[in-house]
């Protein structure tokens, strides 16, 4: 199974929390990216977790600084509200962009993005938590509950194709407790599109258990890499 590093940032620092909360600084983005490449990571998802709050994405300068010497694909996101926000990231050197909060607030934006950038360049990033036995979507880096449940969002994406979905299990995020099979089974059943799963990966051996899944296109992780950096 394809494995990606899911790197969340706050200004120039990589952060990691548990269940998207109580975040701690892992290190400066430049140093962390270098270390991840050294570990053999060859695909990256970068998200500015404060962008939807501050209305600006600090990854533009980070990616701009790196892209020339960086030989691996980057999907970048955080606070994208328009095609022009997305193209700022692409021009800086991102290969794809991901959108969460504002796609949920304004449903027309996904269509505008795929029309200008092509379907393969756009990722729908969703943060999911089970509430009253129902998977619900959160926005603003897991801080706010949206009105969508997972099924209704997947139905929306079925009419508004993107290249991939990145789905994070908020409950498992940063816990190393193992991946969320409840959520994965739901995605396998209902998703119209390939999805990258994120949240709770215990160890690399767990990747074997997802090998036969039809719709999962990858697993994104960070905690597992941080642990090996600190060893």
């Amino acid at each position, binding site marked *: 199974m*394809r494995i990606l590093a899911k790197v969340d940032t706050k200004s120039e620092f990589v952060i990691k929390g548990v269940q998207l909360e109580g975040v701690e600084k892992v290190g400066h983005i430049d140093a962390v990216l270098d270390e991840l490449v050294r570990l053999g990571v*060859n*695909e990256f998802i970068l998200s500015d977790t404060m962008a939807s709050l501050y209305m600006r994405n600090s990854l533009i300068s980070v990616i*701009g600084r790196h*892209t*020339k*010497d*960086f*030989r*691996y*694909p980057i999907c970048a996101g955080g606070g994208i509200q328009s095609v022009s926000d997305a*193209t700022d990231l*692409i*021009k*800086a*050197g991102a*290969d*794809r962009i991901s959108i969460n909060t504002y796609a949920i607030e304004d449903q027309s934006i996904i269509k505008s993005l795929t*029309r*200008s*950038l*092509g*379907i*393969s*360049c756009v990722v729908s990033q969703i943060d999911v938590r089970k509430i009253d036995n129902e998977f619900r979507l959160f926005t603003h880096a897991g801080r706010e509950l949206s009105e969508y449940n997972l099924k209704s969002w997947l139905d929306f994406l079925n009419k508004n*194709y993107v*290249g*991939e979905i990145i789905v994070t299990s908020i409950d498992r995020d940063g816990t190393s407790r193992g991946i969320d099979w409840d959520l994965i089974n739901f995605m396998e059943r209902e998703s119209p*599109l*390939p999805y990258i799963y994120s949240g709770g990966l215990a160890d690399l051996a767990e990747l074997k258990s997802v090998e036969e899944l*039809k*719709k999962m*296109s*990858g697993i994104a992780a960070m905690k597992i890499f941080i642990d090996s950096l600190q060893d």
Partner: protein
Amino acid sequence: MKKICILNLGYSNIKSVRGAFEEIDIETAVIEKIDSAEINAPLVLPGVGAFGSAMNRLTFDNTSYYLHEAFKKGHPILGICLGMQVMFEGSEEDSKIDGLSFLPGHIRNLNQSIEKFSPPSNIGYSRLNACKTEGLGQYEKFIGEHFYFMHSFGLVDDELATDQKLYINFNDQEVLAMFHHQNLVGIQFHPERSGKPGVELLSSIVKEFNL
């Protein structure tokens, strides 16, 4: 130092393409248009975005005309991703707009299956294979190597009259991954984002072009 010219096709991966060439000591210059068939360095057409918008950009100031002249004269041209696709006659992405038509073939939507789940885009690393190894030259060593792809359209059932062709399998189809035909090299994937093998591939292309 050897030099190449990168033609700006709009939303583009220009920075990373430049970086990858510089890693193998090739100097790069970015040009906005072509206004003469006398181009002083091999050309690179990078590309991200949609077929129609790239072609509109190439035709509105006659750049496509001079590209054609350069192609006929045997000027080396490398197309990456969308830059490869525009070398053909057209694409299902924007069926009303003609491609440069340097080569026969139509770019197809790779998501054909309605019966079973098939992803609309091929995203991630895919392994290259070949129908036969004879004649591949410098490119033979890339069979079995993984490169980064990010596309929803591609060429299936190609009619290219060259032995220098490599493929990937996607949605049960053999999709053209790269070719070298006369003075044209086309790459569907992103060598500039495929780690070390990507840089090695660019280096092989430079050698085949005898730069």
